[in-house]
C-alpha cells in the first residue's frame, strides 16, 4: 500500500524535476508573479543577455509603488514614476502580461492572482514578495523569493529548494461572531512565535479553518510568513472550486471538470504524519490586536500590555521594554485605553470585498473619530465596493476612499503614517518604521479597525456589532 501523504508532500512531488543527492530539488514553477520591485532581477537578466524562459507563465502587476491617493494619471514623484515605467518596459521587452496602472484588473499581486483565476489549486507559485504565501489558501504551493531567485525563475522557470518540514496547525470549533481569518492567524502567531514555523510548510486544517470563506483563508495564509513559515496552505474543497469557477484565467468546461477531479485529491491522507503539529481551540479566540513591534506581540482585545517589571527572563524583559518604548505605551496598560491617531484599511492581507464589507458594517451610520484611508485590494474590488455603496459608507464616516496598491502597508508609494502617530491597521507587519519612520502600528481585522475608528481607541468590535442586531 502507498504511504499516506500530506498535502505538502503531494504538491512537492508533483513539481520535482530533479532531486540531488544532497537533498536539494529542482522544482517546476507554474506561475511567476513579478512587480515593480523585481527590477533587480530584470537587471541580472540583462547582464547575462538572457531571455525570459516562459513569458506565458509570468504575470506582472504594478502595486508596490503606485499612488493610492489623488491622481494616478500624472505621478508627481519622478522616482515613483520611474519605478512604474520600469515594470512597463521590462514586461513589454520580455513579452510578459502586465496588469498595469491603467488596467482595470490592476491591484495588489496577492489579490489579483486569485481574483483573476491565475492562482489555482495544485500550482507552484513564486513571487519576489514574502506574502506570496497568500496563494496557498487555494491549495497551491506558494512562497516568496529574493531577487537572485526571481532572476533564476525568469531564466529557467524552475527553482532549487530543499523540502521544508511539514507542520499542521489545526483549529477546531466554531469561532464567535466577528472573528475572522485575521484573528485566527494572529492567535496562531502569538502562540507559536514569529519564528514558530521557520523552515516549515504549514497546512491549516480543522473545522474553524474549513468554515472560513476563501477570502478568510487568503488572509490566514497571507500571514503564515509572519510565523516564519515557508508557505501556508489549505486543502482545496467545494468552496475553492466554487470561488474559481468562471474567473477569467481559470480553466473552463471539460478542462475545469478534469481539474476539479485532480484538485479533489489534494488533501492530506488519513494517517499521514507531520514533523510538527499544533492545535488551537477556535471557540476561545477573541478579537486580537498587536501591541508591540512584531506580529507575535498579539493579545486578545480585553487584555493589557505586558509589564517588563514582572518578567523574570532578563532578555524577554529587555525585548518588552524596547517594544513598549517604541510604541509609546505604559507597561501594563489596558489595550482598550490606547488611543489611535489614524486608521488604515488595505493591503494584501485584508482589502478584499468581504474585508471592506466587514469594516463598512461597523462604520455604517457612525463617524470615525480619527482620519483614515481605505485602499481596496484591487481595482475590481474598488468597483464592486462602489456598486454596493460601501465607498459612501467610508466617506460618510469621514474616511478617505483611495485607489488600489500596497499603499500605507509599506509606504513606498509615499502614503505614510507620520512619526509618533499611532495607526490601527489591517496590514501584516507592525515592525518599527514599517508604515513610515517612527510610525506605530497596531495590527487587527478590518472590523476591529472600524471599531477603533469610531471609538478613537483600540476597541472590541463585538458590542458594536451586537448594537446592530438588537
Amino acid at each position, binding site marked *: 500500500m502507498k504511504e499516506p501523504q500530506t498535502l505538502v508532500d503531494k504538491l512537492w512531488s508533483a513539481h520535482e*524535476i530533479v532531486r540531488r543527492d544532497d537533498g536539494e530539488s529542482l522544482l517546476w514553477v507554474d506561475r511567476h508573479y513579478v512587480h515593480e520591485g523585481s527590477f533587480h532581477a530584470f537587471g541580472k537578466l540583462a547582464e*547575462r543577455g538572457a531571455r525570459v524562459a516562459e513569458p*506565458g507563465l509570468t504575470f506582472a502587476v504594478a502595486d508596490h509603488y503606485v499612488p493610492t491617493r489623488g491622481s494616478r494619471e500624472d505621478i508627481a514623484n519622478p522616482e515613483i514614476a520611474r519605478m512604474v515605467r520600469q515594470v512597463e518596459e521590462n514586461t513589454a521587452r520580455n513579452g510578459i502580461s502586465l496588469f498595469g496602472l491603467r488596467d482595470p484588473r490592476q491591484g495588489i499581486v496577492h489579490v489579483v492572482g486569485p481574483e483573476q483565476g491565475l492562482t*489555482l489549486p495544485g500550482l507552484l507559485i513564486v513571487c519576489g514578495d514574502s506574502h506570496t504565501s497568500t496563494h496557498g489558501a487555494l491549495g497551491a504551493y506558494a512562497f516568496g523569493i529574493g531577487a537572485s531567485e526571481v532572476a533564476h525563475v525568469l531564466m529557467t522557470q524552475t527553482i532549487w529548494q530543499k523540502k521544508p518540514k511539514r507542520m499542521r496547525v489545526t483549529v477546531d470549533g466554531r469561532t464567535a461572531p466577528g472573528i475572522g481569518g485575521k484573528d485566527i492567524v494572529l492567535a496562531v502567531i502569538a502562540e507559536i512565535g514569529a519564528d514558530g514555523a521557520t523552515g516549515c510548510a504549514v497546512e491549516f486544517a480543522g473545522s474553524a479553518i474549513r468554515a472560513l470563506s476563501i477570502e478568510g483563508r487568503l488572509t490566514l495564509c497571507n500571514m503564515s510568513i509572519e510565523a516564519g513559515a515557508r508557505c501556508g496552505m489549505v486543502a482545496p474543497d467545494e468552496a475553492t472550486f466554487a470561488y474559481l469557477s468562471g474567473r477569467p484565467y481559470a480553466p473552463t468546461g471539460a478542462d475545469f471538470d478534469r481539474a476539479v477531479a485532480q484538485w479533489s485529491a489534494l488533501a492530506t491522507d488519513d494517517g499521514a504524519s507531520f514533523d510538527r503539529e499544533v492545535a488551537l481551540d477556535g471557540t476561545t479566540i477573541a478579537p486580537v490586536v498587536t501591541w508591540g513591534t512584531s506580529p507575535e506581540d498579539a493579545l486578545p482585545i480585553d487584555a493589557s500590555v505586558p509589564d517588563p517589571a514582572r518578567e523574570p527572563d532578563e532578555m524577554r524583559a529587555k525585548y518588552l521594554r524596547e517594544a513598549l518604548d517604541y510604541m509609546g505605551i505604559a507597561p501594563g496598560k489596558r489595550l482598550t485605553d490606547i488611543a489611535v491617531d489614524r486608521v488604515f484599511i488595505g493591503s494584501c492581507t485584508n482589502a478584499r470585498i468581504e474585508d471592506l464589507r466587514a469594516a463598512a458594517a461597523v462604520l455604517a451610520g457612525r463617524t470615525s473619530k480619527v482620519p483614515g484611508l481605505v485602499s481596496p485590494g484591487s481595482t475590481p474590488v474598488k468597483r464592486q465596493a462602489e456598486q454596493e455603496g460601501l465607498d459612501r459608507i467610508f466617506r460618510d464616516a469621514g474616511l478617505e476612499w483611495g485607489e488600489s496598491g500596497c499603499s500605507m502597508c509599506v509606504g513606498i508609494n509615499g502614503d505614510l503614517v507620520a512619526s509618533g502617530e499611532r495607526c490601527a491597521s489591517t496590514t501584516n507587519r507592525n515592525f518599527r518604521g514599517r508604515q513610515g519612520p517612527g510610525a506605530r502600528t497596531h495590527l487587527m481585522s478590518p472590523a476591529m479597525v472600524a471599531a477603533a475608528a469610531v471609538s478613537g481607541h483600540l476597541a472590541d468590535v463585538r458590542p458594536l456589532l451586537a448594537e446592530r442586531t438588537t
Partner: protein
Amino acid sequence: MDKFTTLTALACPINQANLNTDQIVPARYLKWTRAMGIGKVLFQDLRFDAAGNEKPDFPLNRPAWRNAKIVVGARNFGCGSSREAAVYALYDHGIRCVIAPSFGDIFSGNAVQNGLLTAIVTDDEAAKIMATLARTPDLPLTVDLEQQTIVCGNKSYPFAIDPVRRMRLINGWDDIALTESFRDRVAAFRADDAARRPWAVPKVSMTDA
C-alpha cells in the same frame, strides 16, 4: 560569487530579537540599485536619527565595531520582507557572516545567493558570544565554515548550517549554470506535465481578456 571558507574579523553584537529586513534596509531605499551604494543605508533608522546624525548607542556606531565583518544577532534575524537589498546592504557594508539562533528563511536563502554566511547557534551560545564581545569588543572571532566552528577567545562553539548551503558557500556555486546542466530533464518534465495537468497553463491571453 565569492567563496567562503574561513573568516577572522571583528564582530558586532546586535541583541534584538526579530530584527527584520525593514530594519536592515527601510523600504524607502528599495528604489535604489545596488550600485547607488545600498551599504550606506544599512540599519539606517537604527544607526541614524531623523536629522542624519549617528546614534552613538547603536553597536555598529561604536568605535570598536565600525569595521566589523561579523554581526551576532538574536533569534529570527532577517525575518519579514523578501527584499534581497537587506543582504546587499549587509554585504556592501562589509559584513560577511551573521551569527544568530534563527533566521528568516527567505533572508538566509538570499544570503547564500550572495556569499553571506548565516551561522546558527543556540540562544545560550549567542548570549555568551555577545557577552564576551561586550567585555572585549576588539576580540576578533574566527568562523570556520569547513569545521563549522566559531572561535571566540578561548572558547569554540559549533554552528549549524544547511549542508547544501554550506557547500554552495564553500564552492561559490552559481545556480543558473547548475540548472542549465539539467536542461533536458526540465524539457522532459514540461512535456509530461502538459499532458498530466493541461489545466495548469493559463489559456486566456491579454488580448482575449
